């Protein structure tokens, strides 16, 4: 059985999977003048959790479900999830970021859990989507489906919050307090996502955020940027 320590280890922003280089769309939202202070950061985080956070957590949970040993046709199930997540990621820049983060996580995962089911991931040249890799990695670590979804949802919050501290010079104590305030919403999102993983892939959450797509494409054109996304 998994220990709480493994849950903490995988949720830790210091886990070497490249999280430090991604702002989750915050850098572009800051540049657009839409996030300027704690209040707007909180609204950003709440919206991101309910959209990208829910979708990512549901796909991580679904990949975790596909990873359990008795699953037949695991590679087919993961390929289907890959295509379904593509269809939920309209912006090419966001598809590329998800695959890039998946590749970074896979590099860490292969080094740490060499026996995980990574070989069943679709052989996409640019890498598998991050939530799929996370689901397999969490399964290999012995975490539950709910813990997997929690790590995914939590990661969408903390990455952007940490970027907010760096980009806007916000008081780190108040940003942490803001995350404390969002903890129930994060747990609720993770629980919804873990439940949704029982549905067929086409029914998984597809929460959209027009500005996330627009911001991502604008960000991708910048010649100078601090964050990879």
């Amino acid at each position, binding site marked *: 059985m998994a220990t709480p320590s493994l849950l903490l280890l995988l949720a830790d922003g210091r886990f*070497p999977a490249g999280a430090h280089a991604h702002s989750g769309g915050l850098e572009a939202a800051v540049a657009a003048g839409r996030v300027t202070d704690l209040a707007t950061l909180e609204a950003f985080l709440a919206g991101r959790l309910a959209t990208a956070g829910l979708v990512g957590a549901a796909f991580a949970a679904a990949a975790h479900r596909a990873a359990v040993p008795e699953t037949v046709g695991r590679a087919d199930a993961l390929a289907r999830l890959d295509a379904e997540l593509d269809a939920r990621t309209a912006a090419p820049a966001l598809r590329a970021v998800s695959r890039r983060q998946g590749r970074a996580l896979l590099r860490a995962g292969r080094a740490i859990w060499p026996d995980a089911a990574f070989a069943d991931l679709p052989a996409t040249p640019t890498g598998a989507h991050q939530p799929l890799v996370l689901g397999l990695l969490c399964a290999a670590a012995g975490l539950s489906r709910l813990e997997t979804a929690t790590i995914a949802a939590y990661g969408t919050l903390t990455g952007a919050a940490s970027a907010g501290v760096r980009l806007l010079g916000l008081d780190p104590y108040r940003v942490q307090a803001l995350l404390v305030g969002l903890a129930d919403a994060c747990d609720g999102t993770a629980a919804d996502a873990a439940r949704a993983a029982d549905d067929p892939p086409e029914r998984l959450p597809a929460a959209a955020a027009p500005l996330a797509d627009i911001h991502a494409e604008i960000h991708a054109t910048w010649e100078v940027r*601090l964050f990879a996304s």
Partner: protein
Amino acid sequence: MRPDTVVPSAVPAVEPITPPATPPHDETVPHTHPEPGVDPHPPLARAGRALRVGIGGPVGSGKTALVAALCRAFADELRLGVVTNDIYTTEDADFLRRAGVLDPARIRAVETGCCPHTAIRDDIGANLDAVDELAEAVGPLDLVLVESGGDNLTATFSRGLVDRQIFVVDVAGGDKVPRKGGPGVTAADLLVINKTDLAPMVGADLAVMDRDARARRGDLPTLFLSIVGDPTATRVADWIRHELAHHAALHPLAVPVGPT
């Protein structure tokens, strides 16, 4: 043509390009030789994978200028790639492109999310991806230079990312920098004290810097450099050639096994 396999005694060294403006060896500038008596231009053996050399150091110490100098030095000699970690992402890469010293396809920029030291030390995946992408894009490489974003004296490279690291400080940063130490100064495989041409103008005492560096670094080499006077950073390039030879011995090229 570069030899694909090297028989050290039989194949003559690739003729080193004569640096156009190498100044005469100036013994008034203090320096330590990496390894006296070692031929700096032995025939270079091909290694199974590229030697990865990290180039770190504080902001403005001349890391990018050193990378550009090394690109010039190795232009016709090695299959070279560069990964930059500047916080402004494309700035360093653009400098190298503008300098015309390296094909843009051989340069990759890594975004570091305001954490240049994290990207080279704690969470190195994006840099490793960039190294892999270079090889995928342009074929096998002999040498990859990984330039850090300008950081502070405590920033060093992970051994998971680079095989050797060079730390660059400059005389304009003050002649007490080597005395301050820090992991970059004390532990880098090579310490480069750059912009020696500025020493008289900023009142830096090179002898003090040399003495302090020796005290801090023990047997590890230190080189004084002025790229103004030596646009191909001759002695740094020689040091890398030497390290390449060691690396090739440790990581031999996989040779297809013929019928016995």
